[in-house]
């Protein structure tokens, strides 16, 4: 088990380097020059001087492979560099400010999705073609087809504008400082309600569908028949024997869908003005802030790789067949 985990961890390193290399090249070769954005509104003479000075400061005057190498060797020392923005703050500090809220959103979202999708999938599989199954199927198709940003707009119009029940942007009310402790917690939660609802919706459709399909396959297996034949209660057959096996593919899909969920939170964070990683990413992209972009990408890719690894480990934990030298594919 430990050897397997270590081997996978070692494989993740070249993958991560590959990702950073590709993005570094794409970002630097794409048109648009961060220095030009900053010096564009200066007078001609000053701008030429400032342009050169800034290029040297940022190291942009060197060849691309030299830039990548120096970026990578700094990264090896966990130095993400400094932002190109005038404040020039360290990228690590900017990310540290924003990572917790994005992680909180994603983790809560995942928990809600799993907590709802598993029972929904099991129920609609065990009662295939029942009214419940048909309703969830309709819900799934609509869930697949609903753009999350549109759902966000609709909810903002309904709960924010028409009913006025929930705040529609940011994380705190203006009078946050004057609230008691519990009022502050409530305020925070009510700001998170709509973003989490939106982020959960699309994922829920997908996962309840996967769960249903997986369950349908499992209940057809012989060992379920034999469990029934030896007289176990249906509750035990489904809840214990079938569920455990039906969960297997879900674990993998959960890990694989993480980049999608994090990607989805870019849109959610942007709409609801939540100061998280997604918002930082969009800002950095518009301002051509290379170090911030690359730092973001490293964090998000490592999280994704880590989640994939965790999913695979969990999988091999519940299914010992995987561990024993099974070749991939």
């Amino acid at each position, binding site marked *: 088990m430990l050897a397997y985990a270590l081997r996978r961890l070692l494989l993740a390193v070249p993958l991560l380097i590959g990702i950073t290399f590709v993005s570094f090249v794409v*970002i630097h070769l794409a048109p648009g020059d961060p220095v030009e954005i900053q010096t564009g509104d200066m007078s001609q003479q000053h701008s030429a001087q400032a342009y050169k000075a800034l290029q040297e400061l940022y190291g942009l005057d060197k060849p691309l492979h030299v830039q990548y190498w120096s970026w990578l060797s700094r990264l090896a020392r966990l130095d993400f560099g400094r932002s190109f923005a005038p404040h020039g703050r360290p990228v690590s500090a900017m990310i540290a400010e924003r990572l917790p809220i994005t992680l909180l959103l994603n983790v809560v979202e995942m928990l809600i999705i799993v907590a709802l999708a598993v029972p929904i999938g099991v129920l609609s599989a065990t009662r295939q073609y029942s009214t419940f199954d048909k309703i969830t199927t309709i819900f799934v198709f609509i869930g697949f087809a609903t*753009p*999350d940003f549109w759902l966000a*707009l609709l909810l903002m119009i309904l709960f924010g504008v028409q009913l006025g029940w929930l705040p*529609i942007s940011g994380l705190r009310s203006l009078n946050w400082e004057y609230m008691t402790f519990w009022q502050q917690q409530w305020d925070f939660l009510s700001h998170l309600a709509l973003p989490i609802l939106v982020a959960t919706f699309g994922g829920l459709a997908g996962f309840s569908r996967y769960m249903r399909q997986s369950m349908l396959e499992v209940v057809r297996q012989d060992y379920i028949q034999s469990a029934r034949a030896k007289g176990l209660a249906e509750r035990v057959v489904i809840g214990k024997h079938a569920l455990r096996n039906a969960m297997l593919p879900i674990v993998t899909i959960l890990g694989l869908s993480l*980049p999608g969920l994090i990607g989805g939170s870019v*849109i959610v964070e942007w709409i609801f003005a939540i100061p998280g990683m997604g918002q930082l990413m969009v800002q950095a*992209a518009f301002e051509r802030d290379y170090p911030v972009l690359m730092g973001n*990408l490293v964090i998000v*890719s490592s999280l994704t790789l880590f989640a994939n690894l965790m999913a695979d480990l969990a999988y091999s934990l519940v299914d010992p067949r995987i561990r024993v030298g099974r070749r991939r594919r």
Partner: protein
Amino acid sequence: MRDFWKALSRNRLALIGGVVVACLALLAVLAPAIAPWDPNRPDVKNILDSPSKRHLLGTDQLGRDVFSRMLFGARVSLAVGFVSVGIAATIGILLGSAAGYHGGMVDATIMRVVDLMLVFPRFFLLLAVLAFLKPSIWTIMAVIGLTGWMGVARLVRAEFLALKEREFVLWSQAVGASAYRIIWRHILPNAMAPVLVAMTLGIPAAILTESGLSFLGLGVQPPHATWGNILNEGKDAIELAWWLSVYPGFAILVTVLSYNLLGEGIRDALDPRLRQSAGRVVSRGR
């Protein structure tokens, strides 16, 4: 083939999906003829008018007719859907068949690239690339296509692995047919069914991605109307004009839903066994 049409026509939902898809295509093609107003002509006297007989779905911040803009937006969505899926399928088929047929190092290399692309946070890549390139309908198509071919490649490879051991392939090898000929003339036609299904389901995914990017302001640029950028403008007027937010999003929902119903219908009709395996091979676009 007749069995296919018979099975498809028995599936009522898929038929409805197909009809809606056809209607949408027709509306998009005929947009210049149907649109009651010039989609890009501002009208300062009628800013943010609510839906009425004059303006069926109201007007936006510049007084432009939302209904006409949505008709023209349909052209963008459908074009992006078809072209980007075409790009993705071409790359996927080329790489998938090479990997599946040749095996060995070729296979290992291609599949490592696929793995790399799959763990890549796709939306971040799209963001980074689009923020740097000048966003236009062509870059959108290219970028969505270039980041979405992995599902097709995997499918084609799996089909090739199974088919290349079959007798008809062994026989063509025995009579000395070239690898090129065997791949294109003998194996590929037999492997196309799941690819077609994946392509049908890939179109709505691409449409969703495009509208999301346009909504963020990284897609097709104003004044060209797309469903996504009408929604973007709707966000700023959310307290004044609900119609700017409600209708374009509903159009996206209906379009994506119809394509999904049609795609699943085609899949079931082609081969009921595919129900599980060809699932959502093309990711949901995010």
